[in-house]
């Protein structure tokens, strides 16, 4: 077991290194730099700038150093928790990220639970009642969530929630609670706002998960031991629960690897529309204004979250299913 964990761990490291290089490369690609964007932004707003100030800032932040040197400094810095400097905020990236990561994790967590709660029963029902009206109907509902563009759905729900329930527009909580320490009232406010992003992001992942659950369960149900159990007169439900269902639980855990990146990226768009206090809006803004270190560090953190999530699911799977350990990996 330990060997398995160690192996997965060591696989994680080159992945992360490759990811960091890819991220840095991609961020560097667009021509121009932050300062140019900043100047143009001011001009667009009809404001005035002192050109000397900009040049000064440019040399201050070491934009005269070669690319690979900057990459090295950033990458090694991340290992010790120094994520670089954000030009937009004029603060270390670490401080800017602050609470946002926690809220991202909260939203992601609830969304995954939501997706599971909906997709799993539907998937099982679909598998056992294949081609029935129920199967079609429920799959249809699930697909409806997938088919509707997230950003539009989020906007509409935000508006309706305000019209019907008086919920404040956007955000993960009412504005008064933003910087206040945790309290019951704050918790309630977050719950009041949380359901919109969870539903919007969750519904788009549900359909895919239903399909995967169904496919997996169908595969199990076709195996000879199920036929044997049926032939031997085991009641349908018991036959279903005792073995095939437990087999598909494996899949439950293994599927985090597919669900996690999709949830995180889906969350980004919805976060922009709803102005959530998660990483989404900041990341988009950083990418658009080429605030390099902020954008790069965010991307790395999100990638890291995903990789860790997958690692945890693999390890959990390893515990659950001895075959995985012995084979040395999951063939997803």
């Amino acid at each position, binding site marked *: 077991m330990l060997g398995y964990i160690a192996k997965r761990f060591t696989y994680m490291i080159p*992945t992360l290194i490759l990811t960091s290089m890819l991220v840095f490369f991609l961020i560097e690609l667009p021509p121009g730099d932050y300062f140019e964007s900043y100047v143009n932004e001011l001009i667009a707003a009809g404001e005035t700038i002192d050109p000397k100030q900009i040049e000064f800032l440019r040399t201050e932040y070491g934009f005269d150093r070669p690319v690979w040197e900057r990459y090295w400094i950033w990458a090694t810095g991340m290992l010790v928790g120094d994520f670089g400097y954000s030009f937009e905020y004029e603060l270390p990236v670490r401080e800017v990220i602050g609470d946002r990561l926690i809220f991202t994790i909260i939203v992601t967590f609830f969304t995954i639970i939501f997706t599971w709660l909906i997709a799993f029963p539907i998937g099982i029902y679909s598998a056992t009642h294949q081609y029935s009206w129920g199967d079609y109907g429920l799959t*249809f509902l699930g697909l409806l969530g997938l088919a509707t*563009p997230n950003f539009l759905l989020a906007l509409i729900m935000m508006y309706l929630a305000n019209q019907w329930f008086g919920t404040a527009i956007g955000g993960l909580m009412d504005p008064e609670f933003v910087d206040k320490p945790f309290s019951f009232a704050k918790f309630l406010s977050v719950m009041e706002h949380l359901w919109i992003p969870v539903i919007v992001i969750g519904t788009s992942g549900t359909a895919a998960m239903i399909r995967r659950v169904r496919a997996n369960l169908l595969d199990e149900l076709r195996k000879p031991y199920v036929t044997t159990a049926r032939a031997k007169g085991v009641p349908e439900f018991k036959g279903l629960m005792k073995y095939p269902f437990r087999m598909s639980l494996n899949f439950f855990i293994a599927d985090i690897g597919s669900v996690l990146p999709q949830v995180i*990226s889906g969350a980004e*768009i919805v976060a922009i*529309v709803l102005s959530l206090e998660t990483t989404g809006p900041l990341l988009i803004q950083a*990418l658009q204004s080429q605030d390099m270190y902020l*954008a790069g560090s965010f991307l790395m953190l999100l990638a890291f979250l995903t990789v860790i999530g997958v690692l945890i699911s693999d390890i959990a799977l390893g515990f659950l299913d001895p075959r995985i350990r012995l084979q040395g990996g999951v063939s997803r």
Partner: protein
Amino acid sequence: MSKSATRLPEDHYVNEAPFDPKAIEKLTPEQEAVFLASQMQLMWWKFKKHKLAVFCGIFLLLMYLMAAFAEFLAPYNLEAKNSQYIYAPPQSINLFHEGEFVGPFVYDYKKELDLKTFQRVYTEDTTKVIPLSFFCSGDEYNFWGMIPADNHLMCADIQKPIYLLGSDRLGRDLLSRIIYGARISLTIGLIGIMISFVLGIVIGGFAGYYGGWVDLVVQRLIEVIQSLPTLPLWLVLAAIMPANWSPILIYFGITVILGLIDWTGLARAVRSKLLALREEDYVLAARLMGASPARIIGLHLVPGFMSHLIASATITIPTMILGETALSFLGLGLRSPTVSWGVLLNEAQNINVVAITPWLILPVVPVILVILAFNFFGDGLRDAADPYG
């Protein structure tokens, strides 16, 4: 029991009909048809059983036809705008005017500028009837950019506008824009899929066939790409694309971006299939006969599960369509004056529309329908692709 059955002492039954020793092995004509049927035939038969998939397939075909004949079907041209009818709500087609059957027509609008709410208020003017005619002459256009014509399926007799789905902020007919928008939205997925396909097969193929360190590297690469959230990747890639390219180039740029992100799923599937299949004898035989790896992969291995690939590809097309809408939302994809469903949705993405002119959200309906259709169609294809399953 035939009358001529001979009754033996123990009451056994013997059939008098002539005995053909090979009867067991002989098949009925239907069974023979099944046995001798090609893979394609079998797939088609299995597919037909999935009624919903067939229905969706027909629907999709109709949509593509609609996109092809957009100029004819749309009541108005792409450039047609009318500053007198900005934000006009949808009109309903009526048949009876004051109790008499008049044929299909719409009522004209009475327009008022409300300077207190800054809205244009439109009411149905039940006195002015605008009859509709079919297969008539309307706006001029160039069919597929080449053949000048002016036939339209439907237009108004008098030179008054008909806005069956309402008009937008420049007085452009939403129905026409949705029809024209189908052209880009429906095809962008196809091209993106093709790119994805090629990449997936090539990369996954080599990984699965060679195994070893090639496989390792490819697997890590796939993990890296999959662990990065797609949205920021899009943003970065789209930011690299020079934003002043012509709309056509941008279109192709976007299909490439969408395709580049999505090949990993296919590659994984190809790889795992190949890992299993390459131990088969026929592969060994081919190798011994001196076939190159590319030939083996391309000619022998891949066709075996091509149907699976096609099925999963079909299910990815909706992702591409949604991807295009997402890119437009972020302001990275196509932009006005190009028209696609993503552009239309982007124009609907603001609080004004949701609160005051909600009919501009209608383009979401064809998006949903097409995505649903592709999904069911793809499901049907996938079930059919495994005819022995």
